[in-house]
């Protein structure tokens, strides 16, 4: 699971700022509903992967509390090691006291040198946390910092849009979505897991005919699902595999893509047009068009999991309600 999680951050694209310690040390983090821990690189990290300008210097924080416990995450060919600590956390001017977090002291590989973010702030349920202690949002609730036990995401599809994205802690902003909100109960309190009624591609419904489980994940950019289903979808939209497990389509055909994909959630249809489920990327002066669907086999006790990532969440404002354990969607 940890392996998949770290791998998935290679597709994360929305970051925000936090600060840790006294005086404050600033970090950019992915606000990730697909995990529940807060971690940043440590000043003690000596590997090449940690040659980042921003590393947490515990010795410079007067409010830092050393925890002493270690953590390790196996992934790929390497192993990420870290230690746990506790300090003040500032998020958009709000101070969370005694926040547990992880400092990574050994990171294999160099992938994170490419990242524009320094760490990850998980917004999942405590059951998903790999360290003891409250996740950030739980601490916010325990310290009565918010009016409502809710947070919500607005993610714009445009680069340099205004705003490019916004996380609201404690409520929603009705200017960013159209009513009504369709609420779906959380089916397992670890990820933000919900039930998909069905997935319809090209008017046919061979996927999840009897419903399946999905997690709503702001830490990944794509929509993922079981390999067999995703390969069928790629075939239906005419996407061709690359060597890297991605699927590419001919950009010139985009205007001829009549297909719509529908996710039926809580009896309501959520439509993605071809322009919305195809990701465009420039490689030099060439434009590449990738399918927004990716095969990732994640198994839960309730069966295979789909992931609704940014491809979906840029179209639909998402609301995460810890008070009533439900996820709401509205047209962004």
């Amino acid at each position: 699971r940890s392996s998949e999680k770290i791998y998935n951050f290679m597709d994360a694209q929305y970051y925000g700022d936090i600060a840790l310690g006294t005086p404050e040390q600033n970090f950019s983090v992915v606000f990730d509903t697909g995990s529940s821990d807060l971690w940043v690189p440590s000043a003690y990290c000596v590997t090449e992967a940690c040659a980042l300008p921003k590393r947490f210097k515990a010795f410079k924080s007067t409010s830092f509390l050393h925890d002493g416990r270690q953590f390790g995450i196996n992934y790929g060919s390497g192993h990420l090691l870290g230690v746990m600590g506790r300090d003040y956390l500032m998020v958009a001017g709000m101070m969370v006291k005694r926040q547990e977090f992880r400092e990574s002291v050994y990171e294999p590989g160099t992938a994170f040198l490419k990242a524009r973010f320094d760490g990850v702030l998980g917004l999942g349920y405590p059951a998903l946390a790999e360290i003891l202690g409250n996740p950030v949002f739980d601490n916010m609730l325990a310290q009565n910092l918010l009016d409502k036990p809710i947070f919500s995401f607005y993610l714009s599809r445009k680069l340099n849009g205004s705003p490019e994205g916004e996380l609201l802690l404690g409520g929603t902003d009705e200017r960013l979505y159209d009513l009504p909100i369709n609420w779906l109960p959380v089916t397992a309190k670890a990820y933000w897991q919900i039930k998909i009624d069905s997935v319809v591609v090209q008017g046919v419904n061979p996927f999840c005919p009897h419903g399946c489980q999905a997690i709503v994940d702001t830490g990944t950019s794509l929509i993922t699902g079981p390999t067999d289903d995703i390969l069928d979808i790629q075939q239906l939209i005419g996407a061709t595999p690359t060597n890297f497990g991605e699927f590419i389509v001919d950009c010139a055909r985009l205007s001829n893509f009549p297909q719509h994909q529908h996710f039926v959630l809580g009896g309501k249809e959520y439509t993605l047009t071809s322009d919305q489920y195809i990701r465009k990327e420039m490689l030099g002066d060439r434009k590449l068009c990738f399918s927004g669907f990716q095969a990732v086999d994640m198994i839960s006790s309730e069966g295979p999991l789909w992931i609704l990532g940014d491809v979906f969440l840029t179209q639909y404002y998402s609301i995460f309600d810890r008070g009533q354990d439900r996820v709401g969607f509205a047209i962004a």
Partner: protein
Amino acid sequence: ALIRVPLRKVPTIRSQLRSEGLLQDFLVENRPDMFSRRYAQCFPAGTPSLRLG
């Protein structure tokens, strides 16, 4: 009590690795299972293991 955290959208690690021609190396390093499956398809059962690492 309503806290707004502005989010920035930037290219993914995948995009950056691709533009620098480093994507395959990254995937071999981080998803050896994916490449093992590909090799398994290329070499039928009975051939010596080509597991990475």
